[in-house]
């Protein structure tokens, strides 16, 4: 398949496609239009292809056959273009579509964005990288569906807050930490479930509160300290920022390339404003 690396092949193919239309109209017929040259490079390519398939060099007769086949194919190829057989062929359309997209994507990659570029990306998407709120908290697990009613819950909360009830005395056994220190809400969500993390954000600090629902059941919670989330510093999130910037860049360039083409077209669709 060394043929694939032959720029000549692409030149031939590309040139034929681009100018095929004019040639096909029959005007300005160029004598070269009906000239086919099988050069040394072409012969080498044909030989290589043969070797790859058959594990030996072609005989002279076989090589002649290959060359004749090549000429025949080239003639049919040109005549097909003249007749416009490339049009309205879904296979060819799809193929050209894929090629164009590929070419456009090639313009994307800039592997080493500057700090300024990354900082701007970070500033434009602060929420994505912000450190989520950090909690210091104590929690007591009451069970999956404790029988306690509202009245007794508020008695328990009072007792906990006044120190007359020890958390251990009402805690149901479960292997979850009774205390969390400087734990971010993302980690808490992984450990206790989304609903629990959401519940935390709604209660005040400093007092036993609840019940708060988790994936395991009900908890009473005392947030002892809450550090609100803060914006990230580039150095601590550089890798993620670079990856995200690059991914967005690729998508943006592809879209821009398409829009660039599209803007040159006047598009009308029935029943569409």
């Amino acid at each position, binding site marked *: 398949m060394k043929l694939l690396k032959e720029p000549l092949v692409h030149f031939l193919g590309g040139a034929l496609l681009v100018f095929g239309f004019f040639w096909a109209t029959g005007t300005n017929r160029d004598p070269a239009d009906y000239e086919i040259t099988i050069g040394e490079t072409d012969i080498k390519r044909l030989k290589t*292809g043969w070797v790859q*398939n058959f594990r030996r060099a072609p005989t002279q007769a076989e090589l002649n056959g290959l060359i004749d086949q090549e000429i025949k194919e080239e003639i049919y190829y040109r005549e097909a273009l003249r007749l416009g057989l490339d049009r309205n062929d*879904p296979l060819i359309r799809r193929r050209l579509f894929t090629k164009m997209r590929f070419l456009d994507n090639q313009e994307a990659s800039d592997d080493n964005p500057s700090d300024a570029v990354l900082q701007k990306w970070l500033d434009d998407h602060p929420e994505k990288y912000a450190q989520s709120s950090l909690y210091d908290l104590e929690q007591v697990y009451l069970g999956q*569906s404790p029988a306690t009613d509202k009245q007794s819950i508020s008695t328990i909360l009072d007792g906990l807050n006044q120190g007359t009830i020890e958390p251990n005395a009402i805690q149901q056994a479960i292997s979850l930490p009774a205390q969390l220190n400087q734990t971010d809400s993302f980690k808490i969500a992984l450990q206790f479930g989304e609903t629990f993390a959401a519940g935390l954000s709604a209660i005040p600090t400093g007092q036993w509160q609840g019940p708060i629902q988790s994936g*395991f059941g009900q908890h009473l919670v005392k947030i002892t300290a809450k550090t609100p989330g803060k914006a990230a510093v580039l150095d601590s999130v550089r890798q993620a920022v670079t990856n995200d910037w690059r991914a967005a860049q690729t998508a943006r360039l592809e879209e821009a390339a398409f829009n660039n083409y599209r803007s040159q077209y006047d598009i009308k669709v029935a029943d569409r404003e």
Partner: protein
Amino acid sequence: MMRKALLLAACFAALAISGCSKDSGSNDSGSNVTNTEYPEQVFWGDTHLHTNNSVDAFGFGNRLDAEAALRFARGEEVTATKGEKAKLSRPLDFLVIADHSDAIGATKAIYEAPRIALLGDKFLLRWYDMMHESEEGSLRVTAELIDGAAQGTLPAVLTDPEQQKERTSDLWISHGKTVEQYNEPGKFTAFMGFEYTPMPQGDNLHRVVMYRDGPDKTDKTLPFGALASQDPEKLWAYMDAYEKDTGGKILAIPHNSNVSNGRMFAMSKFDGSPIDTAYIKTRALREPIVEVTQIKGDSEAHPFLSPNDEFASFGVAGWDKCNLSCTRDMAPDSYGGSYVREALKRGLELTVALGSNPFKFGMIGSTDSHTSLATADENSFFGKHSANEANVKDRALSPQNLGTRKGRFGWHYLSSGYAAVWATSNTREAIFDAMMRREVYATTGPRMQVRFFGGFDFTEADTSDLVKTGYGKGVPMGGDLTAKAMGPNGKAPTFLVSALMDPESANLDRIQIIKGWVNANGKSQEKVYNVSWSSPDSRTVGADGKLAAVGNTVDLTKGTWENNIGAPELTAWWQDPDFDAKQNAFYYVRVLEIPTPTWPIYDALKFGLTLPDDVIKIQQERAYSSPIWYMPAAATS
């Protein structure tokens, strides 16, 4: 412009077959992550994910690359090949991209090549046209590929390593660069890996191979293909050479033993000769863990082998009649070499007979997804491959490319599984090392936390501080109990086990300990013990030794269940009541969730399908721990 286009076209053509990649930079930053004293956290991952670099994945339509796969695993939203938005409910902690090493990137290269370049090759040209013509054409190509690989009839251009080398090398180096960009020690671990895919006559001998190292070392090697050799011993030799040449580390993970036709855990070598000590030692070293559950079925146990285990049939239907490509039927007498519990038992028999154990492995789950999407959630199943993604209406009932003549349909595919790793940090080194010491377990998707410790001195009171006592007085899952630790009085081993439900999933039904041992005649035996279960006051073990079922709250008309049966956490201290100090034994844990709906139910609700009676609609998802082994004094080496 024209000139630029031509240059690009030339580069494009070269890339398709050989490559235009630029620098191969590796930036092994050296992590500043602190390891905890003992494994405090379980890390979740998928060790078996295919991207569009896998010949079949691309043929099935997958157009998402490694970068999309990594972004998805890290929790980013991506657009699946078929256009549906996809996002994990919770990110994963690590990912091994394991594309098929054979003809890696080849279908993509054929597809993207200029057609004129393939004119000389009738075989590839036909495939090229089929792939471009329609999706069905592309699926047919892929079926032919798998079949051709199974039959050994693929053309030289796809099978000759020399012809592959240049493309593979460029692809491998650029892949390493992508993986490195997404590897963030302490936050997310991206592993280099590949899948070694031998399937003689369609018998599955596949292994995922993963490296502990980054591109600074992996760039010096190329993935090893089954086209080079179908004999796993040759893979192990490749692994030896890699470690010697680079100072790196590497391990292999067998999977889908269920469609190996008895060959994955055969008592003989690849060529049929009997297993010897050298083979045993190498296999045990190179294959410390096995992938026991995944999309193409579950390989833990089979009812034929374990008639007294009422939960042995999970993920078996559709996968036990014929091998991977369905070119050969599988008779029940082949199952012994196909299911993991039986392999663990064979390992004990070999320990008695030859003094060491080739099948001393831990257990993980993984997806084997070919969509670049590492998801095992029932309610957002993205299918085995891109032709069966979430928005394909009839996928649950439609015939599959592999084995429908034997009754294998879409619904037989499982939305399973994940690998759980007890490691001291989220880094390549810590996760890899935990796998080497087998401190890992498998789940079929839910992220329940399972702890399992064995020792001779645990007491019932130790369950209150299970983890600390577990490490202090015993060994974790994957470890060994030796006669030496037992002391002279021959007392039976004790175990501490706990399972905490996934807070986003279902309650737990029960914890079981599965024991395998070898009796005085050298024959292996097995027994399933229920050691902890929900509602112990109302649920009792009957005369037949079976524990009363947990019940069922599934509402098939809504796709829901209630956590008002089962328990959020189960814990147990257990001592083997049938222990014989002279017998080799293993013990592993199986945790069952309460019944929940299978993915076809969610499809039926979404698309308004009527599912036939034989479709499995309710299942009990589960976890399998790595075993703890006991060796009597005489056999301890």
